[in-house]
């Protein structure tokens, strides 16, 4: 299992909103925080659905045992630690950490 995924098989999305790498609160972060709770929910939920679709297709198999983040319908990064994943992708993509859909990709049964 890779410890990090600086060169993931699925390239993080490009040409999508919020990729300004801004320090502090970006316009994308502000827009997300200003949105209604239901609008925030709809945005994040759409990315969970995208994550489940890619998972079902086998596209996340290289990330078994890790957490993966999705943003704007696309893979945005992976990391063994979900908090570090949210922080890193948020910083790289200029979005609020809670804007991301993060799921755990299983690679074994843990009892």
């Amino acid at each position: 299992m890779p410890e990090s995924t600086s060169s993931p098989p699925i390239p993080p999305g490009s040409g999508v909103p919020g990729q300004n790498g801004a320090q502090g609160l970006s316009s994308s972060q502000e827009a997300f925080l200003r949105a209604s709770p239901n609008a925030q929910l709809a945005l994040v939920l759409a990315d969970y659905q995208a994550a489940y679709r890619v998972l079902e297709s086998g596209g996340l198999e290289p990330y078994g045992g890790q957490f993966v983040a999705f943003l704007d319908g696309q893979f945005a990064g992976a990391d063994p630690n979900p908090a570090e994943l949210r922080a890193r992708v948020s910083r790289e993509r200029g979005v609020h950490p809670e804007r991301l859909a993060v799921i755990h990709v299983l690679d074994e049964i843990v009892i």
Partner: protein
Amino acid sequence: MGSVRLSLRRHKSHAAGSHLLYLEQVVALFRVLPSESPALIREGVIDTGAPVSVFPQVAWQPFEQNISWLTRRNDPGVPKWCREVSGVSGGSIPVRLGSVVNELFDHLGGRLGPFEIVAMFAQDHGRMRDLLLGLGGGVFANRRLEMVYTDQAITLSDA
């Protein structure tokens, strides 16, 4: 009467004789209330084998202010099974009991709640992976859980 469709997440498969086995989980999406901005949305694994819901530290720390604590860490006033969990990753992990208000939702517009659950909040320092929505504590109270496994149709609804 609320209802949500739960997801059967399949990670891998393996043909064993005439059977196809899946590495799979039933998951639910929920948000933690009160609904301040930003919405705190989490994925929980439905685990009726877990007596109570268990939140890994990394999952609950961002909404610690929303938790009403019911016990202290290593609280001698509660039984051992309510102050530590074991077997999830080896060794024992201290937990605190607390309550939090949640709302379950799905991608079809279904909602359940808001409702309060009592859960174990683990002090696991990253040892736990998944957030478990367990049998007791309120997730399933006055609810009906229906599954047609072959159709991957799983619904949790108000009874």
